[in-house]
């Protein structure tokens, strides 16, 4: 006997609607808190980099390599410390923006230590995590499976993978957390001779950056600080006299990533609410249909005399 599609849908609805109704209330209550973009912690540390001050001396590049025990990258030209981009030997780099016409600019690149990091949202086992007190995005080797999802997710293309290694690590700026632990500031800010990059609490540096913009209207691009709101805000702030896009700082809405796209994932899997509801409905319908199926199989057996198969 065939059960009509209508009856099957009816059974689905009977099992599903009470469950759906009760769980919707629960999910929406926690949705509000889950969907909000997180705020930077009160003790968030930060860097402020100003393109108008930087002379491109690259002292920060060498200091970074030394402080983090990185081998000097001479692979490209044989010159000391002259890679083209961040890589497995380079956590911090100074690049030159040299347009055909218009002003030149140096730019310092390292991890932005996002307030709402996409890499942390992507990492399956929290190997990349945001330290709750100072907001540093750090890497924990015992949790990393080397899936490289952080590289796919990061809007700034920061995390790098040790492709050549047998026990490959994820290499990225970790804000010299070992130096902060002993009361020193990060190697790059400590060594900078012109204070183009400075270290301090995020709230203080953000206010300072805004003061610089106010003091000289028109000097900085769009008269604003990059990193205040981009992708939920970053803990490395930029002031630039050239367009942000030109020096590799992408245009990102406050809720760009992971915010807008990925919050629902956490809602679904936080309490396993959605899978459990689906399973309850499926199991209910399955058990009913299985009894029916067994009866049909028995009839068939009596008809053909053949042992039934599942």
């Amino acid at each position: 006997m065939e059960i009509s599609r209508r009856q099957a849908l009816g059974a689905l609805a009977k099992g599903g609607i009470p469950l759906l109704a009760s769980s919707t209330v629960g999910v929406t209550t926690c949705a509000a808190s889950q969907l909000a973009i997180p705020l930077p912690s009160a003790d968030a540390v930060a860097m402020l980099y100003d393109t108008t001050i930087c002379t491109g001396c690259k002292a920060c590049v060498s200091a970074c390599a030394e402080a983090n025990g990185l081998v000097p990258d001479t692979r490209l030209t044989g010159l000391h410390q002259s890679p083209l981009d961040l890589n497995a030997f380079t956590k911090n780099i100074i690049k030159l923006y040299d347009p055909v016409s218009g002003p030149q600019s140096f730019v310092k690149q390292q991890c932005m230590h996002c307030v709402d990091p996409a890499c942390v949202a992507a990492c399956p086992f929290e190997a990349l995590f945001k330290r709750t007190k100072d907001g540093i995005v750090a890497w924990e080797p015992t949790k990393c499976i080397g899936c490289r999802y952080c590289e796919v997710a990061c809007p700034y293309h920061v995390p790098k993978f040790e492709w050549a290694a047998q026990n490959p690590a994820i290499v990225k700026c970790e804000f010299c957390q070992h130096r902060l632990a002993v009361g020193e500031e990060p190697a790059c800010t400590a060594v900078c001779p012109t204070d183009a990059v400075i270290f301090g609490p995020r709230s203080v540096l953000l206010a300072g950056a805004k003061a610089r913009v106010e003091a000289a209207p028109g000097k900085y691009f769009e008269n604003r600080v990059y990193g205040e709101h981009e992708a939920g805000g970053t803990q490395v702030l930029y002031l630039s006299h050239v367009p942000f896009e030109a020096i590799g700082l992408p245009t990102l809405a406050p809720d760009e990533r992971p915010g807008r796209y990925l919050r629902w994932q956490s809602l679904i899997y936080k309490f396993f609410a959605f899978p459990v509801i689906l399973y309850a409905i499926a199991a209910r319908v399955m058990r009913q249909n299985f009894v029916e199926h067994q009866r049909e199989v028995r009839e068939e057996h009596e008809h053909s005399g053949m042992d039934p198969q599942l």
Partner: protein
Amino acid sequence: VIVRWQRGVPVYGVPVVTGPFIATAAVAGLGVMLIIYRQIVGLGPTTGMTDAYPWGIWKTFNTMVLTALGSGSFAIGIAAWIFRKRTLHSIMRVALLISFLVYTAGLLALGVDVGRPWNFWNMLLPWRWNTHSPLWEVALCMPVYAFFPLLLENTPPMLERIYYLYPQSKAAIRRLVPTIRATYPWVVALAYVLPILHQSSLGALMLLAGSRVHPLWQSPLLPWLYVWAAAYIGVATVIVTLLLCFLAWKRPLDFEVLRSLAALTSGLTLGWVGIRLLDIIVRGQIVTAFAFDWYSLVFWTEMALIGGAGVALRRKPVVESGHSLFLISLATVIGGMIYRYAPPALAFSSKPLSFYSPTVVEILISLGFIALCHLGFLVAVKRLPILPAPVSEWDNLVDYYRYLYPWVQISRSDHATSEHRPGYAD
């Protein structure tokens, strides 16, 4: 002659080890050796992946694309068990076998791809799970699906072989039957929930890539389009497989079942194409589809294959000829694979702009996984009652086995000799 598929019957009278089998085994063996080589020397020397293209064909093709081919048991199972399409029960065994093999290979590919696989033990510590991460969801959900519901659903054919060929096991298997029967609906219900979760998560993986994925593919609906695509790719794969088996071993075809599979594929593809076009129009990206660049070429190829197949499968002459049904189903599979491959590869642009081309080692390992699936399928259908056939085929098989194993008594039914019937479903 109208053929009715009534039960699974092994392919008999054909040796397992043939020329093509040995060739496939050689490809698989080479793949396994290269996997060992990759584990020794690391990812850098063996693959073409870079920091700009961190995911190569193992993850993007073997896991993200090929597991869709194994979703037939999910879609057909829902039609058969939840919506009670009775005739589709006869092909569940084929669909389940394909699913198990393809998922196992996809998981192995994921294991070979990751750089620090020894840290997978973190999966055992739930407090280290990042429930935000689609990759965590995939890494948890896919093994659970492959090694719990799929493995269990694939045991009846194995038990059946043991039951008939090793009479001393009959009592033990009979004792097992009530347990299987009691747990079966609970396990099978799980088999319809888990694929929704991990197939949608495979799509969600690319949400985090943001603007690196071309706007024709980057959409909040990506997870749902991915799982939906998996459903019709899986069904079309089962059609293609059944028709290939017909070609290879002259298995009789039940066109009523094939027609309902074609109708299922057609409905799924046309609905999917509609939602996909609507999504592109609502997001205001339809203009980019007419840019006549690489991306619009990929987009229209995919749309033409999937939409065209969806329309063609509604036409009577198509579904009544095995030849055209095979070609159209194959077009559906290829179109669906292009869609699934686009976000992580075909429509993925790196920064700084660079190109990824898989190395020979990568391709050979990828082929090795496909060869392993193929070998598993060949052995299984020749040794286990998997492929559907009319009851008369079973009788022929029994005659053949009487000749092959004279000491084994296989009757049409044990009913006459025993109080209990040996079936698993009765």
